[in-house]
């Protein structure tokens, strides 16, 4: 590629010794990255490695505690001037941030509508929009609403908008997650065409194949530091896989022998297909006291499988059986009564009710037992919560406290306690340790272990490779189906299976 001829140029983006600290978390530590004009630069790292923080710093949404950012040799604009940042850098997110309720032309000119004196000149705007769309080979009517355009065209439009406004640097934050094959190729063709015209790209993706296909330089972040930064042929997929592995400092919580009683099945999922198509024909079973993990990229349908077992999704076909009894799909109460305990993916969204107390949140799923006739005894509720608080070692151990006042780890313990309150036979846990500190993580794993010892079947669905490694048996989902079953995998096996690079 053309990079070697450009080495003597001033970098388009120069990040110099940048650190960013949130409370106790060092999101970025002394990160330096230099990207030359006309390059496509890959930014790689696991969840929490600091990619998003770095992107936010390059787009001016956040500002470094120490260090500096320069564009084409000039210091970055002051924090107080977001408009100046937007002129230099544009960012395309996986869900394009646009106005779906406005026309395509308005989206292209949002914030700089062509005017005739005090009024918007629709004619000039539409003519200009026509010209831009032609140039980009986007066959859409600028007068139509953006909500009618496919997601791929929306991403193209975001790039087109940025470049027509004079921006020469475009950040692509996992732009392909929502796209299918042909659309990805069209996007890449366009990126390469623009690259030849001198536009600089930063490309963030979990798909290593895409990185090797399109990038001519790349930086790998791990734990907020630059692991390495390379050019051209030095980027090989094997190195990339290795770079995503956690390294030595990893803490293993491997569940050794899951005394699975031979022959008996606690949870059986049989040819389960989601009504909205999130997953198709998924089958597996878990024995009492056994742990099964499911991994996969975002959009692979892994979370939906867990939600379906918990009764939060309707099925088109298939059957979920708990301890031999089939459960009525799509009914949370039915799943709970059958013995399913559930920890949802996003505790803020559907895990807890922030302004209610710890006791209320913990006992929410057992109201039918606690108040069979509808009448509740707060004392009984508090007593039950006290027991659960002890079980999950909640800090502070106060059942009356509003959950909104707890730390992230303790909020998650409340959600876990809610799942345990019914004495489940099956626990479905989605990313149970996401966004919690090490101490809480240890405590949560200890609870999972104890449940396994008590003969509970545990389904652990996670984005975090380290978390998947806790389990001896790991299923990898791809595009709504089970792509691989791994027994006793190491990190590399899992990364390869998730990336589809076996």
């Amino acid at each position, binding site marked *: 590629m053309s990079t070697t001829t450009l080495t003597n140029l001033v970098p388009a983006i120069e990040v110099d010794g940048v650190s960013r600290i949130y409370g106790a978390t060092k999101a970025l530590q002394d990160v330096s990255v230099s990207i030359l004009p006309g390059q496509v630069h890959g930014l790689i790292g696991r969840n929490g490695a600091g990619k998003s923080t770095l992107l936010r710093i390059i787009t001016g949404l956040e500002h470094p505690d120490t260090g500096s950012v320069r564009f084409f040799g000039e210091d970055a604009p002051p924090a107080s001037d977001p408009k100046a940042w937007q002129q230099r850098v544009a960012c395309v997110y996986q869900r394009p941030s646009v106005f779906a309720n406005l026309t395509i032309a308005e989206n292209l000119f949002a914030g700089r509508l062509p005017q005739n004196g005090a009024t918007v000149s629709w004619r000039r705007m539409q003519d200009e929009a026509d010209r831009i769309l032609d140039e980009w080979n986007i066959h859409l009517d600028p007068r139509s609403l953006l909500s009618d355009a496919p997601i791929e065209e929306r991403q193209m439009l975001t790039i087109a908008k940025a470049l027509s406004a004079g921006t020469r640097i475009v950040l692509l934050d996992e732009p392909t997650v929502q796209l299918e094959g042909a659309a990805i190729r069209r996007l890449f063709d366009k990126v390469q065409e623009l690259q030849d015209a001198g536009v600089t790209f930063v490309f963030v993706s979990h798909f290593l194949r895409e990185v090797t296909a399109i990038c001519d330089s790349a930086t790998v972040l791990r734990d907020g530091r630059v692991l390495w930064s390379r050019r051209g042929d030095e980027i090989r997929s094997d190195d990339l896989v290795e770079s995503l592995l956690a390294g030595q400092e990893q803490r293993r919580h491997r569940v050794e022998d899951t005394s699975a009683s031979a022959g008996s099945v606690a949870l059986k999922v049989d040819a389960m297909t989601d009504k909205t198509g999130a997953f198709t024909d998924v089958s597996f079973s878990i024995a009492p006291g056994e742990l099964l993990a499911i991994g996969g990229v975002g959009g692979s349908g892994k979370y939906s499988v867990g939600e379906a077992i918990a009764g939060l999704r309707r099925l088109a076909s298939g059957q979920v059986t708990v301890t031999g009894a089939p459960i009525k799909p799509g009914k949370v109460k039915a799943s709970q009564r059958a013995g399913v305990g559930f920890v949802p993916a996003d505790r803020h969204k559907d895990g*807890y*009710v922030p302004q209610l107390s710890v006791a209320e949140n913990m006992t*929410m799923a057992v*109201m*039918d037992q606690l108040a069979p006739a*509808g009448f509740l*005894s707060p004392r009984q509720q508090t007593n039950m919560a006290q027991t659960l608080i002890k079980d999950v070692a909640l800090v*502070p151990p*106060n059942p009356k406290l509003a959950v909104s006042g*707890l730390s992230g780890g303790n909020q998650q313990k409340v959600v876990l306690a809610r799942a345990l309150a019914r004495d489940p036979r099956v626990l479905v846990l989605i990313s149970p340790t996401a966004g919690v500190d090490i101490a809480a993580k240890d405590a949560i794993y200890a609870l999972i272990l104890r449940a396994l010892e008590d003969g509970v079947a545990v389904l652990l669905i996670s984005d975090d490779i380290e978390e998947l490694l806790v389990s001896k048996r790991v299923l990898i989902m791809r595009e709504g189906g089970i792509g691989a079953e791994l027994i006793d995998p190491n990190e590399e096996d899992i990364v390869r299976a998730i990336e589809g690079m076996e």
Partner: protein
Amino acid sequence: MRTTAIRTTASKSNFAQGLVQNVRELSVLPGLIIVVIIGAIVSPAFLTAANLTLILRQSAELGIVVIGLTFILLTGKLDISLESTVGLAPMVAAWLMIPAAVGGLGTDINPFLAIFITLSIGVGIGLFNGFLVVKLGLDPFIVTLAMLILLRGITLGISEGKTLAGLPDAFRYIGSARWLGVPAAIWVTGILFLIAGLALRYTSWGRALYAIGGNAEAARAAGIRVDFIVISAFVVASALAAFAGLMLAGRLASVTSGMGENLIFSALAAAVIGGVQLTGGQGRMVGALLGVLLLGTLTNVLTLAGVPTFWINAVYGAVILLALLVGRWGARTRR
């Protein structure tokens, strides 16, 4: 930082905790006391048993509507058509009973059946509203705005604008009787507030309202039947509104086509002044009751103070605004 703040709260005595919990509701109290003091200064007639009874009696219907509205607000929804239900439900019943000569249909039905019809109409309207909001996912404000206009229109259409008088005694009883020298309506409203307050605290239905208003997704994931509970809140609220209409008819000894008009604005003001959040999940019956008492006392004092009739609404609005500002200021300083 966060944890230390929690620890200090946790270590305080139960009494202090209880007080903190109650502050939001109690922030109405200073306002109420000020209005009472002004009332006492303005007119010697204010602090008489007869006048205080009058205040309570005139607040009864508002109070009952506020109970129902609070249930709905707790779930994060809204029903502004309650005021039209106050008018329509007794109107239909009265229209069926009253002889054709004075504008009715003259079916000569049993007054107890008429009471039953009144309440059933409330239940029906609540089911309809709840269904539109929950099952069809329509915006509660727009749905109930349309219903407010529609139901009021039906009331006007049935009565042809006339006032239907000559209601049977049994139909008027609850709005006109006195128990132990105090209007029955006051007893009933008080008891309903008590039951509603206890239901919010001590039943799984009440707690579910808070859970849904706080985070409906989490409530669903916890196995709460969100749709059913929200619809039931609409049904209970509309049935209570119909009952308030019955009481109002009894007090006025007639049914007019404008009964309940503008009541929903006072009801919303009372609930919000009393600490019920429009966004759902927060507020208690004690607060709502205090809000009702504040507005009721205020109306009375404004009349006694001889505020010109045409200016009463302006003063009323200004005081509601002031009460909200004081409440918000109170919430700030506690942080």
